[in-house]
């Protein structure tokens, strides 16, 4: 009986180790990536943000109404010309796949800037620096400055476009922000 008890202890330790090792503690839900692959090895992907329903936060001083309700945006002088926004991000099918922050404004010493951080939990994060002025057709082009995980080694551009649909007195501006990413990996030597 003592031998079976000792055997049980060993089996218990082995079983617990096997369970802890085999079953993932975190399993991020993945949506199918809607990526177009191009002949040069690059890929392109379209994201969008529906406004106003995907806006988590709009941090801007003197805004007529706060998003979210109850937001107490600081009134520091250094934030006077800075706008910080948080959004949910959707893929081409309209499914939420991540969250994003957009900072823009004008720094006293260094001038205007527009930046995006697009965080896709199951894939990684893109940090994009945009051109300050959009093109005549409404597109603002940006470069991928840094990325994590899936985007770590990629380079490329991201286009931002705001499509205004209507101005609702209750909801504010209704429309969507489109983010089109065209990224390519580092060149690899052919064997």
């Amino acid at each position: 009986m003592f031998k079976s008890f000792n055997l049980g202890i060993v089996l218990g330790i082995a079983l617990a180790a096997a369970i802890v090792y085999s079953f993932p503690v975190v399993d991020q839900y993945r949506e199918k990536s809607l990526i177009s692959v191009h002949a040069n090895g690059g890929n392109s992907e379209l994201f969008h943000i529906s406004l106003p329903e995907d806006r988590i936060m709009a941090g801007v001083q003197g805004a007529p109404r706060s998003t979210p309700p109850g937001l107490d945006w600081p009134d520091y002088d250094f934030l006077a010309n800075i706008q910080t926004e948080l959004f949910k991000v959707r893929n081409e099918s309209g499914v939420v796949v991540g969250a994003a922050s957009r900072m823009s404004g004008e720094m006293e010493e260094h001038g205007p800037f527009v930046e995006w951080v697009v965080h896709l939990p199951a894939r990684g994060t893109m940090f994009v620096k945009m051109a300050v002025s959009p093109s005549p057709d409404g597109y603002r082009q940006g470069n991928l400055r840094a990325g994590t995980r899936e985007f770590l080694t990629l380079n490329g551009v991201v286009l931002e476009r705001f499509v205004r649909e209507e101005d609702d007195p209750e909801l504010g501006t209704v429309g969507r922000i489109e983010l089109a990413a065209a990224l390519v990996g580092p060149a690899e030597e052919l064997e």
Partner: protein
Amino acid sequence: MKYVISLFIGMVIGMALFVAGIYFNPFVGNSSVSPLAISDLDLVDLSYSQVPGESIVFTNDGESRVDPYPSKVLQLWEPTVRNTRGFVTTLNDSRGEATGIGVKFSSDSERTALMDAEVLVDSIWHIYLPGRGTLFVDQTENFWSYLRDIVIPARLSSGENWRGSWHGIMSTGPGALGTARVTGSTGSLMGVEAEAVESISAKAYSATSGPVGMNGNLTIALPHAEEEPL
């Protein structure tokens, strides 16, 4: 029959021993000494409150113990973002004065391995520092010691809270020394590649509402500013 019963009891005790071995393993856990402590670079210290109610915005899936703030903020309830938190806070300098603003997204990492005492979170910061520029910080944080030393004792406590003094370095990568990666983008930080370390100093935690007395600190080691030629 008695052999089966003794085998079963042995297995239960074996599993309990395994769990206790992981939980009480003294050889794992977060360091309390920053790998940047001996750096000769320019260190920028940014501190902030970890208490959601003292932040500008905190959002999660809405079902966690820590409530979103403000209460009507849009919650990250969709399956793809359910394990993600969004946090916006004022960043203070070492004198406690507001010196910038930061956005943090944190997602539970699939590389979490309890066997190795790793409760990992992939997190990024998007930071604006007036007069300097903007920064992107990406890192992996290990919350094992935080869970073991604060969260679990709080839940086991009859008062459902923890009080004490705890300090831990959370950053565990991707840098070789366990540092976060920093990318500067605008202003005088344009093109800067640097390292950072995030730490937490805790004094009180509630099992029902989350952090009560807790500060975070982000230390960024920036290259020396180039001196103007005479």
